């Protein structure tokens, strides 16, 4: 009887989780974003793991490892964020079982004893702890072993399996959870069985390590087809944080950037850090402080889009309009896929100076961050433009000639994006190394980033309008603060970051001319950003003066 009740409670929890997942993926744009995850995983992970396995591409090189880490983290973070899983586990669901919407207790007097309730919660926590312990143990093993695969075919197979399994995980999970939705009474037992299986695997692993000795166990684990890829990811994450940094300045750079990155990750996962508290994600409208959905009567989609256009591209100003083009600004302002992207990127910026990336493929490593930023911005604004172009009334309904708004406001953004891309490309091409390989890499990275940016730009433009509609216009100073902020300060900080990065690069002991060149490029990009920022802000002020009707709502 007690176990039956526990299963009922667990089923309640899983149903809630399923509901959250379904709600997270309710909108087509969310599903599109999930498709982006699949794209990122299958495309880029394969790329970085030797889709071109010849002597010119070393899958163990820093660049390839970095690529795997970047896109693995990106995809995983996006998947988790889109599915709402971290939020379910961390907040909003009350107990781990989600039994109390207020996070206290069951609010209904159910005929279930408190002991049974406690056991159900304990069991679920145990399952979660075991799952977490399993993940951490794999990570620890990776750090300890520092083993990397060298056999390209095996690597290729692992990469493929890893990609497929990672891609399949959200889909399979969705089906499992939909099973819960179907009212199948065996679902509770099935989920318990899954959790029990995880426990068995972890316990077996511990026993194996104890019986074989750590070294042998690590080697076996690292070389086992089912675990190699996972170990690599763990190693890469660990190395990205710790690296092989001997100099205090390098440590500082890594620590500072790491903290920023960590905050970004945690925010992306739904932790309400103050920096991002109240920000509303187009992917999670209820995140942050949240407002009651007591919006005014729902206007049409077009009108909402107009509002969004105004809010994002005028109220928020160049934070989105212009400089956000330099990438993660928008990501930080709206918990977006750019969040996880910014994380490995920032880590990389620190690690590139003194880390494992000072290898023969440094030219590629240096190409990536700037090019990614430029391309992302280009794609992002392109997507936004297309989304708006699909509804031309948005432009024409604005005071003054809509085209004037379009050209004055939007044109500089993709231009800056492309400019940044080429600014990164040129020094990279000038660096010593295989020209063909560099071009190849550039060609491969470009469409990926363009695609991401495009999807995000279009999706955030459209979905943001829905967010705005859900929330209604800010009715107080506090709400206005919590709304996508009207200031453009978010766009400003990219400037010192770029300049600081350039200075750090310039200060590298014994820096060769390529590094100095990159430093100059970074500083120049910062200055260009600042100029663009000021210019777009001036344009924004000029354009928004006759637009009080939205702001006053």
């Amino acid at each position: 009887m007690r176990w039956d009740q526990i299963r009922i409670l667990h089923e309640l929890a899983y149903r809630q989780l399923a509901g959250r997942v379904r709600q997270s993926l309710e909108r087509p744009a969310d599903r599109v974003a999930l498709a982006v995850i699949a794209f990122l995983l299958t495309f880029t992970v394969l790329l970085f793991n030797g889709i071109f396995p010849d002597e010119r591409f070393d899958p163990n090189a820093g660049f390839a490892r970095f690529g795997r880490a970047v896109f693995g983290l990106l995809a995983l973070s996006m998947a988790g964020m889109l599915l709402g899983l971290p939020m379910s586990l961390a907040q909003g669901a009350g107990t781990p079982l989600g039994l109390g919407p207020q996070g206290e207790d069951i609010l209904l007097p159910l005929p279930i004893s408190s002991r049974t309730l406690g056991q159900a919660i304990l069991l679920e926590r145990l399952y979660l702890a075991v799952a977490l312990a399993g993940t951490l143990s794999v990570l620890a093993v990776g750090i300890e072993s520092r083993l990397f695969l060298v056999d390209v075919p095996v690597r290729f197979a692992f990469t493929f399996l890893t990609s497929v399994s990672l891609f399949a995980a959200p889909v399979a999970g969705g089906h499992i959870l939909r099973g819960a939705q179907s009212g199948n009474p065996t679902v509770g037992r099935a989920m318990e069985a899954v959790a029990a299986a995880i426990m068995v695997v972890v316990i077996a692993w511990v026993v194996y390590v104890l019986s074989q000795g750590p070294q042998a166990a690590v080697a076996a684990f690292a070389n086992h087809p089912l675990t190699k890829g996972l170990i690599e990811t763990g190693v890469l994450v660990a190395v990205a944080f710790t690296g092989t940094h001997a100099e205090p300045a390098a440590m500082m750079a890594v620590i500072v950037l790491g903290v920023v990155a960590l905050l970004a990750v945690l925010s992306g996962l739904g932790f309400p850090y103050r920096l991002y508290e109240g920000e509303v994600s187009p992917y999670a409208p209820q995140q942050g402080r949240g407002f009651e959905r007591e919006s005014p009567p729902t206007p049409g989609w077009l009108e909402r889009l107009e509002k969004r256009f105004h809010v994002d591209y005028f109220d928020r100003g160049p934070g989105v309009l212009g400089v956000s083009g330099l990438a993660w600004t928008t990501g930080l302002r709206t918990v977006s896929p750019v969040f996880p992207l910014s994380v490995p990127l920032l880590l990389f910026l620190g690690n590139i100076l003194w880390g494992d990336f000072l290898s023969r493929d440094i030219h590629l490593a240096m190409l990536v961050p700037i090019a990614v930023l430029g391309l992302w911005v280009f794609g992002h604004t392109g997507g936004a433009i297309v989304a708006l172009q699909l509804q031309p009334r948005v432009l024409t309904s604005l005071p003054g000639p809509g085209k004037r708004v379009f050209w004055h406001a939007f044109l500089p953004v993709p231009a800056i994006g492309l400019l940044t891309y080429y600014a990164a490309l040129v020094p990279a091409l000038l660096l010593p190394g295989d020209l063909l390989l560099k071009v190849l890499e550039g060609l491969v990275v470009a469409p990926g980033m363009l695609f991401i940016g495009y999807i995000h730009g279009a999706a955030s433009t459209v979905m943001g309008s829905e967010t705005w509609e859900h929330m209604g216009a800010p009715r107080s100073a506090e709400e206005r603060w919590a709304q996508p902020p009207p200031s453009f300060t978010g766009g400003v900080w990219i400037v010192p970051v770029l300049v600081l990065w350039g200075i750090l690069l310039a200060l590298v002991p014994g820096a060769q001319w390529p590094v100095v060149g990159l430093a100059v490029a970074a500083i120049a990009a910062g200055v260009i950003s600042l100029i663009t920022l000021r210019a777009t802000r001036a344009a924004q002020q000029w354009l928004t003066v006759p637009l009080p009707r939205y702001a006053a709502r």
Partner: protein
Amino acid sequence: MLAVHGLSKSFGNVHALTDFSIRVRDGEAVGLVGPNGAGKTTALRCIAGIMRPDRATITIGGHDLHRDPVAAKSVLGFVPEIPYPYPHLTVWEHALFIARVFQIPGWETKAERLLKLFDLTEKRDAYTAALSKGMKQKVMLLMAFLHEPTVLLLDEPLYGIDPRGSHSLKALVRERLAAGASVLISSHAMSLIEEVCGSVSIMTRGRIIASGTKAELRERAAAPQGANLEEIFVKLTEE
């Protein structure tokens, strides 16, 4: 039958309930009224077993809540003051959950009927997070009535409810009364109390200061013959 004797509850130095006692017989509905902060909600939460009293003897349907809470709660229906349905469950899943917990045979038919009564049929597959507060309250009512409890505790049951829902709720309460259930309703809606409840208990500052039928309370308040419950309440709580 519902019997509460000597219920006391304190929050630090604040005595929310002091020696609160009430008895609701089978087939009887009792109204619990009082000013804001009188302790009505605290009393109902203690009786429902979701808040631990400092001391009390509470019997629900013949089961001692302290000694046999599962049996006591199995015959209890409760509508909390503020509706908090599970935000990520659909309306129908709420019914399913309750049906499984209370092991209700033939629950689908009963749930369908309640959905219809509360105009929730179209919202059957909607997540409650997306419902209005009135709709959420209807979901809570559905959950409270689905297992046909023999003891009902309703805390501001008309919260956000439209007139049709109000009408359905009163009909359901009468139906439960006819089946021999004991109903305790806490509400500021005096019309609901007058319409449904045979007797009323008035409480202030954690104590019941007057109980009885409307006529008995009128007499105690020395109110004029035509005074309604609201006027009687005002007079009694002025003292």
